[in-house]
């Protein structure tokens, strides 16, 4: 009967779009907020 698609780690009921938090086709979970690059002023990149 195929795969239960609700077990692939995607929140299909999310009101937000999924692609902006999509981590990888081979990952079981979405990205955490801190995983996602965000364009900040270059001066902020002090490390």
């Amino acid at each position, binding site marked *: 009967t195929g795969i239960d698609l609700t077990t692939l780690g995607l929140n299909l009921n999310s009101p937000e779009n*999924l692609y902006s938090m999509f981590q990888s*086709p081979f990952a079981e979970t979405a990205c955490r907020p801190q995983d996602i690059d965000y364009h900040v002023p270059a001066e902020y990149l002090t490390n």
Partner: protein
Amino acid sequence: FDDPQGLHEKTEYLLREWVNMYHSPQAGRDSFKAFNAFVQQMHTQGILKTDDLITRFFRLCTEMCVDLCYRALGEAGQSTTMIRAKCFYTLDAFVRLIALLVKHSGDTNTVTKINLLNKVLGIMAGVLLQDHEVRYTEFQQLPYHRIFIMLFIELNAPEPILEAINFQVLTAFCHVFHILRPAKAPGFAFAWLELISHRVFIGRLLALTPLQKGWGFYAQLLVDLFKFLGPFLRNADMTKPMQLQYKGTLRVLLVLLHDFPEFLCEYHYAFCDVIPPNCIQMRNLILSAFPRTMRLPDPFTVNLVVEHLPDINKAPRILTNIVALIQPASFKKDLDSYLKTRSPITFLSELKSNLQANPQGSRYDIVLINALVLYVGTQAIPQLQNKGVSMSTIAPSPHMDIFQNLAVNLDTEGRYLFLTAIANQLRYPNSHTHYFSCALLYLFRQANDQTIQEQITKVLLERLIVNRPHPWGLLITFIELIKNPTFKFWDHEFVRCAPEIEKLFENVARSCY
């Protein structure tokens, strides 16, 4: 031809120089200071003198970066994090150089920028394919994956210069990803799927590019993916890597179904053309998409009158040119003539052989069958507009003559492909769904051979017993079949051919009403 004497050493020196400059604190914002200084060095070293030298420089740099990665990957006892840090130290610097050259080459002339980008991407593809062929199962995707994704992210940063050339940048990347499609570079298949499903890539192509101009590109890449998976899904003998790739593909399709259902709606036909007919669940997923503006009536509603639904007479957008798929031209001419005047009378008797003219392995030309079914249907619907599409109006007609001929004269395999083509049109409420739902039920009722009725039932059932989602049109068609007494569904022998089959029907019936 061989590289000019000394170019290799010169390139190696320059690349090392750049990597050091890139990582030094004095590199400046976005490495711009370092870049200015480095371009001077390139000039003095004569690298920018001719187009050919620039090409060789990039190829040599790419090869050096790749070799460095292979060496790092070959070091025993290193953690993957350390290996990656070591590789990315050079790769990211190289990517930044390419991005800066693309951004600042040709001043305001965007053509120069895009030409350079295409050149570099072409070189990357060339190096990758050669490496893939030479190293065979020793091939590593890491350096290429990193270069492509970081370059894509760099060139899609929110900057005015880049915004001005964004669509050409997307075109260039889609082009190179098409060249590196899994069928061509299977050793790169996992990285390839990562690339085309990266959120920045999907975001740019499907959400941010205006007028959906990126959709066609993305659809092409999905077709590439389905064509690669096809032969393996066809036999359902899934090795572990293939399972992983398949599951990954399902995830990507779920994201598309959730975020861009209209995209799946508009390209479903092209996708179904390359997804193997027996790949039920993945195809259901695509066929289940419906426009977000649409409110789908519950298919299990008692006394649902499909004909009264507001959208039922609207034709869905189909972006594939199905007329072009009906070959040869003489066959198309006869088809049109038959639809108009039911002549030549030999058309129906020759129909089966026309559909078997496919040399590629399977005996039937699936693309032609799909195109024929949809074309005949779309020719029939306008003629029924006044009377309205229903079981009583769709026949008699030359269109249904063709369908009935196929149902009766094709063998089991051919009939399965024919019925599959019809079932692929059972989607969200629209005029195609309605017409083909009626057509399928009409074929069931008119069939004087129970084998045909059984096969129609099988085609529907195999799509219903897999895990969700299920297309709306599929559900309402099957519910109508088992509820409407005029089909005498439950009187048929095949419903009771085995206890578990009977039980299955009863379960499905119970869930339906």
